[in-house]
């Protein structure tokens, strides 16, 4: 009787295969979904290739009430700066403003008004408060394309020497600032 146990083994293996496949798929889905809930995984995220690269060549003219800036200004930095693309026509930007106002004491924020009329952007900042120490205007959105943005608001953390250290394509919130941005800032300041 050598054949029946051999057959049984094979049958058990065949029975187990779909179960194992389902288990693997289940664990995968669970990881993805829990990551989506925590915010560590976003399927719509565009993996910015700009990370750990110097800022692109660009310059943005003055946007009232601030002074414009360019790649040279960012590359000359010795301290981290947060660059934020915003627009007066963008509702999430409006929602993000209180968070930026609370953040402006921790590190300098430089703003770029993306595809916005200068008077509208100025009115927006008068209404919501102005967290930016430098302000530029990207009227036709070309600078935004050079930075690889796909919409507003988008935020970049620029390390010393003008290297892009972190990027967020979503409005900043307290969790992101506390959980990601602040630890990163600490490590940048140490090094």
């Amino acid at each position, binding site marked *: 009787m050598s054949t029946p146990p051999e057959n049984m083994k094979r049958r058990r293996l065949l029975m187990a295969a779909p179960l194992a496949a389902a288990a693997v798929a289940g664990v995968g889905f669970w990881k993805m979904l829990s990551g989506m809930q925590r915010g560590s995984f976003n399927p719509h995220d565009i993996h910015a*290739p*700009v990370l750990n690269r110097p800022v692109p060549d660009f310059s943005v003219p003055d946007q009232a009430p601030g002074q414009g800036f360019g790649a040279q200004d960012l590359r000359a930095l010795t301290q981290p700066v947060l660059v934020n693309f915003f627009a007066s026509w963008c509702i999430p930007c409006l929602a993000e403003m209180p968070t930026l106002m609370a953040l402006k004491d921790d590190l300098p924020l430089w703003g770029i008004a993306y595809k916005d009329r200068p008077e509208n952007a100025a009115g927006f900042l008068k209404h919501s408060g102005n967290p930016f120490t430098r302000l530029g205007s990207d009227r036709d959105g070309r600078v935004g394309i050079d930075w*690889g943005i796909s919409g507003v608001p988008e935020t970049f953390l620029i390390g010393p020497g003008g290297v892009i250290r972190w990027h967020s394509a979503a409005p900043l919130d307290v969790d992101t600032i506390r959980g990601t941005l602040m630890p990163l800032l600490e490590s940048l300041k140490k090094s």
Partner: protein
Amino acid sequence: MMLRRLSALLLGCALLVAPALVLAVDDPSEMLPNPQEEARAEAIGSQLRCLVCQNESIEDSSAGLARDLRRVVREHVAKGESNSQIMAWMVQRYGNFIRLSPPFSLGTLLLWSMPVLALLLGLGIAFFSYRTRRTTPAAPPPLTAEEKARLASLAKNAGQHDTGRPDTDQPDNGHTDKGPSA
């Protein structure tokens, strides 16, 4: 009066059909004057993902960013840059994600080799199942004495069943596969 209505109707129909015929280039001033260059720009644009509506090409999308990127593509085409130069310009800013067909690399190896792998797997399964089907009947294991006895009793029971009650609705007493060995 009648003629005017008819022409209005025809014009309406034409307007309904027209959007299906053209791409999202909704402003003719966007297009390059040279039809050859315009065709090349459209070919490049149809390979670039619109990052706002992520499954559309920039030629198909009417998002603001898609329009801006279309204009950029046309400027580069008018400057006489090659397709690969323009593609590289886009990839430098937006990464490979902007390409609707990803390039062959270590990360996309599994993706690109999947059709070949699936074909090989199918051929393998077909080959093995064909071979086992051909070889199995050639070597039936001989029955043990116990099995022979059980087979004999089963045959006896089946014989009774077949001849005893051909077509009745009565409870099936004789039909059991519990032989004396069980």
